[in-house]
């Protein structure tokens, strides 16, 4: 108080002075901290523990699951053991299911991309009411829970389902797709289509009219405009749509669990079976690690494509 009255600066205040930049970056760090800590604690630590467990580190926080699980392999060296991986990769069931998982992922992603791009291009180049209706309908699966959609797909294509009934009415034998890999692909396309369509539409719609008109003026046909201008210019949204669809399908459980066959099944279903029904948690985690590695590969492609495009257009 005496300091204020005397007009002199308080020595304590002088020592506490912080530059505005430092204060701002401090506030920014504090705001970013909660989610980072949350991720590290509840995702990072379990991931590290799980990978350790898959390598045979059964002590510490892994001791409970190690004591419950069957066929648990113990570490034989400082880094662990690859025996659980050998178990999984020498099991013909796993390699077959890995192939099916990759196959379903690739086919579903291609179909989703083709449909989403078709809807977006139709809206951009032709427009009109019908194109808008298609674009609107493509988003509908977003509002229908996957469980319900899976059941609907199953009954629609099952032996006594709608498709075969209609075929039978005209004296034909329709396909039975319920509990087949085809139904899994159909279900995966259904669940992935809305996001991919929204991305494709936003990508294609953001291309200025003049770019399309310049191509038309240069004599390009609609096909050339699509393949040489529209698709390359909306590459990034399409890559986002493709990677998100692929990662989603790769790790899907509900759709293959409900609509797919018992064998071959996708890895999401296998992980669940190994973990619960067979009580082989270590092998289940090995499969999860494999799925994680595949997803990382897709994510790397996403980052690489983004970087390449940014470099081309002079953004980096």
């Amino acid at each position, binding site marked *: 108080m005496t300091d204020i009255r005397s007009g002199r600066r308080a020595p304590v205040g002088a020592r506490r002075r912080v530059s505005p930049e430092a204060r701002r970056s401090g506030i920014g760090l504090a705001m970013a901290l909660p989610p980072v800590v949350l991720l590290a604690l509840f995702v990072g630590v379990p991931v590290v523990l799980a990978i350790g467990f898959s390598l045979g580190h059964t002590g510490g926080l892994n001791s409970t699951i190690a004591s419950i699980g069957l066929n648990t392999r113990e570490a034989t060296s400082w880094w662990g053991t690859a025996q659980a991986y050998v178990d999984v990769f020498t099991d013909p069931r796993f390699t077959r299911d890995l192939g099916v998982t990759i196959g379903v992922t690739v086919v579903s992603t291609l179909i989703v991309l083709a449909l989403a791009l078709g809807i977006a291009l139709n809206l951009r180049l032709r427009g009109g009411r019908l194109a808008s209706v298609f674009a609107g309908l493509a988003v509908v699966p977003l509002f229908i829970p996957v469980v319900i959609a899976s059941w609907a797909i199953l009954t629609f294509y099952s032996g006594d389902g709608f498709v075969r009934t209609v075929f039978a009415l005209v004296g034909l034998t329709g396909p039975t797709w319920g509990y087949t890999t085809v139904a899994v692909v159909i279900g995966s396309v259904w669940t992935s289509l809305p996001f991919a369509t929204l991305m494709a539409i936003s990508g294609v719609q953001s291309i200025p009219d003049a770019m399309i*008109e*310049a*191509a*038309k*003026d240069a*004599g*390009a046909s609609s096909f*050339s405009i699509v393949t040489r201008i529209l698709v*390359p210019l909306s590459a990034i949204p399409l890559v986002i749509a493709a990677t998100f669809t692929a990662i989603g399908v790769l790790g899907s459980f509900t759709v293959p669990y409900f609509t797919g066959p018992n064998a071959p099944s996708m890895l999401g279903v296998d992980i669940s079976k190994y973990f619960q029904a067979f009580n082989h948690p270590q092998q289940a985690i090995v499969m999860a690690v494999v799925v994680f590695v595949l997803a990382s590969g897709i994510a790397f492609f996403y980052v690489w494509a983004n970087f390449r495009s940014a470099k081309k*257009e002079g953004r980096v």
Partner: protein
Amino acid sequence: MTTPTKTDARSGLTVTALTKVLSNRTIVENFELDVAAGELVALLGPSGCGKTTTLRMMAGFLQPDTGSVSIGGIDVTDKGPDKRPSAMVFQNYALWPHLTVFKNVAFPLSIKRVPRAEITERVMAALETVNLAHHAHSRPAHISGGEQQRAALARAIVQRPDLLLLDEPLSNLDAKLRVKVREEIRDIQQRLGITTVMVTHDQDEAMAISDRVAVMNAGRIEQVSTPTELYANPRTLFVASFIGSMNVLPAPTLFESASLSHVPNAAPDAAADTSSSGTSTDDPPAEAWAVRPEDVLFEPGSGARRAGATPVEVRRVLPHGHFSELVLNAGGAEVRSVAGGVPPAVGDHGTVTLNNVRHYVDGVLVDGRARTARVLAGVKA
């Protein structure tokens, strides 16, 4: 290297009775234009006058409701832009950002399946024509606005079009660059002899590089003339006020002293009627008189009054460098004049006489400078 030249004597443009109505509004009405081979014609007008719509109908992006477009004597009205022998330079250049400058320019040729060696040769020739060969492998984002403009021009001329269409080609450049690039465009256009139509709202641009200027207003052509003729003999009041600076007066009162010099001391009280001088010409007045500022001759000093001169007071002086614009008050009426050398000061008195007064009835010129005095005498009578 061969230069991308093509000078076909027949490759002119003929547009007849073009009309376009969009959402119940007539955008272009009965548009007629003949462009000779190798000529550069500018479509000049305020925004919303229909000039870009007209250009888009010439390019084939819009179908006219009536009328026809012929390029090189061949009717192309029903053909799309990909089937017309025309090439367009877009306002924002519309270069494709994922392709290099070379590939942008090569695109029209690769679409037409021109052999690879010929593509390389023609693209490099076009890039050299616009002085951009050193940037062939840059991407559009890495070159400046002026260079992007030239790349867009190269993409158009590489096609060896019969008709080159430029849509506000300079509007995205800064003032200094605009003057430089417009001269380059004119130079290239003349060297290649390409028939060219350019849309612009900038009269300086239109006057500086065009062979002829078509002034458009509300979807119609007001006048098509050479730049000099357009300035000297504006046929409508709109053209008179749109091209250059013009004093538009609703009554002949200020001129009486100039033209009817035989009437001494022309009614000074009537001067107050001209207070609304220089009003907008959106809705042309039934009668108007127009005179260029350089035809308003200002004489400083209120001493010995010249015959027919009107006394004025200097209200404002706007320096333009080598000359100054004067805003003068003549008994309530405001007229603009110009002064070279040392301009008078605000508040100075002087006299003005008017030359080359034009008389417009319902916005149309009824009398040029030659017969001004007689018409005014008639009006007075």
